[in-house]
């Protein structure tokens, strides 16, 4: 294996891990809503898109670095999530609630995307900051600082979520609600409150993702579709109900896509990712993290 072959392999792996980190970040919010609460939120991508636009306009108007806009996007999206849950998703009742939430949230996603289209227009937008182009050169390999930072934040938030769910009362209450809604009510959990807080939390995490992605992706009203698909793959691949699973899922997807794109074909990158997804589920139906406690 020549030096160039080694370089290609290492750089491909690094690239895959970093893109995987982005996938983790995108998937985290959905981990809470879909992974833990089992509510299908087909508008997850649109929530991220919304946060990106908020971040973009803050940058345009005040020169605010998108990374700092997290302090605006996270609470703003928390509110959006609460409204979605209280106003719409929480009203679904009955045995078909889970199936109906797909349709409902899909519709909400369409409304969000088209509202942004109406207000902000269809123009594609991009943010240029020094951070967007910062690179670390490590022994001939290149690491994008922006991607690395996003990965770091994904890990950080996953750890925070883990402790939240394992150690805090509210986290315990959420898990109880997910396991058995009636039993949770019986032991004194305010199930309604738990529901909108969790949804808000998931949306707030989407808000964090949006702010971090603004410097490195270009945005347009329908960019959410891309994110939603990847987020679902990440969460299911990692294992439903597993907080840590999003990390495994994101990394696995990123690495497989990267290797596939470089060594097989760039054009089939997405297809290779999905094939791997299917295969992994065939052999490990619970997802990559099945067997771990959370």
């Amino acid at each position: 294996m020549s030096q160039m072959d080694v370089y290609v392999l290492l750089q491909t792996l690094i690239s895959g891990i970093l893109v995987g980190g982005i996938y983790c970040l995108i998937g985290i919010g959905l981990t809470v809503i879909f992974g833990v609460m089992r509510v299908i939120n087909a508008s997850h991508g649109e929530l991220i898109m919304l946060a990106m636009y908020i971040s973009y306009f803050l940058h345009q108007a005040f020169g605010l670095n998108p990374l700092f806009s997290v302090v605006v996007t996270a609470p703003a999206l928390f509110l959006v999530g609460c409204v979605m849950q209280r106003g719409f998703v929480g009203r679904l009742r009955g045995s078909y609630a889970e199936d109906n939430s797909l349709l409902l949230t899909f519709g909400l996603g369409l409304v969000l995307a088209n509202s942004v289209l109406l207000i902000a227009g269809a123009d594609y937008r991009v943010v240029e900051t020094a951070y967007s182009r910062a690179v670390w050169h490590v022994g001939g390999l290149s690491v994008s600082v922006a991607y690395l930072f996003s990965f770091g934040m994904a890990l950080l938030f996953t750890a925070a979520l883990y402790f939240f769910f394992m150690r805090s009362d509210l986290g315990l209450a959420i898990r109880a609600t997910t396991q058995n809604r009636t039993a949770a009510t019986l032991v004194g959990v305010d199930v309604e409150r738990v529901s909108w807080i969790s949804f808000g939390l998931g949306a707030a995490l989407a808000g964090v993702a949006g702010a971090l992605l603004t410097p490195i992706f270009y945005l347009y009203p329908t960019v959410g579709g891309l994110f939603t698909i990847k987020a679902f793959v990440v969460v299911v691949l990692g294992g439903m109900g597993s907080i840590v699973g999003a990390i495994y899922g994101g990394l696995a997807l990123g690495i497989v896509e990267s290797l596939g794109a470089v060594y097989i074909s760039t054009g089939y990158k997405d297809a290779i990712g999905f094939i791997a997804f299917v295969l992994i589920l065939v052999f490990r139906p619970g997802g990559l993290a099945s067997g771990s406690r959370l």
Partner: protein
Amino acid sequence: MDVTKALRALVPAMFALSAFAASDRAQAQSKEPIRFGAPLALTGPVSSFGAQDRKAIEIAIEEINKAGGVGGRPLEPVYVDTGGKPDAARSAAERFSQRSDILFIWGTSTSAEGIVVAQVAQRNKIVFFTHVAAAPDLTSKGWDYVFRQNPMTIEYNLAFYDYLLKAVKPKSIFTVYENTLFGQSNNKAMSAFAEKNGIKYQSDAFEGGSQDFRPTLIKVKAAEPDVVFFSAYLLDAILLTRQARELAIKPRMFASSGAGFIFPEYLKGVGDAADNFFTAALWSPDLRYAGAKEFNEKWAKANEGNPAVYMHASSYASAYVITDVLKRAKTLTREAIKDSFKATNLQTAFGPVRFGSYSRDGVNFVNQNNLQTILVQAQGGKWVSVWPPEIATGKPIFPIPGLKP
């Protein structure tokens, strides 16, 4: 009530009314606008092309209409938003063909749309006049009703090839291109050039909108080419450039095929990452064409100081070509207009316009304007024309500091 009496009063009243109506119509007739179809991408991923083309032609149309239009009649483009989608362009063209007041069709924003509009126009015997669609197929099928003012993709890079052969003399080229008709035809053209001149050639395609181009760029870096050639639309162009710099790819020269790279938003979006990039272009405000500089000033005034790019100039100039065609047409019918287009010979701010037949690389083209293309380079944050020396006013910087010598 006596019905007979009422009727007897009604008939002369109707005649009187119809006389008024007729005279009204006769008056409107002289100011009746001359309409043509304009299917453009006003929303969607290539909306910057469509929206700006519209802005540019409107500048010309306002000037032309203020000067009396064509025989006192104003020009009136009928815009239809295609979203950049060929299917939408096809249905727009069909509907235009069915309307008796539409004399010809002008546009489009992408080659993919242009080819379908050309087919529909040819079938319905209505002229399709394109000022910007560049895939060769539009004028290589012998379609009598299709006229093209701008050079084709296989010609885009002629100044670039000339420069490569005369000044750069590369041993290898790697092309990274977006996977639709525009990118594919660019790739084909570069590949043919490389083969003809014994230059090693590799290429990789990407899906527009994929945000992450690193897998492709890793392959580029591994190949260590002398020249890296990009063919992409705007946002992909920005991310490609950023990621290429991130991966520290160092060929002797980065070049691209116009389109996304030529917009001022590109240079703004990449900062100094694009310093000394070359781009094949069809026009530059600093060329020695009468009216070029003036149009650029008008455009900049209306667009926050941004310089005009070739699409804008071509769009602007096409309105003057249209006016010249309509003035020379024996009658304002679709057939006569086609004949008038054929006889065009006009100097414009975009360059000379004559629709003729010629062949290139063994393929025959008809109704194609044979316009010289150029090479521009990003110098000090602006695109400067650097080749060919006869019409360019700047000088190329090569070898490029920071890259392979």
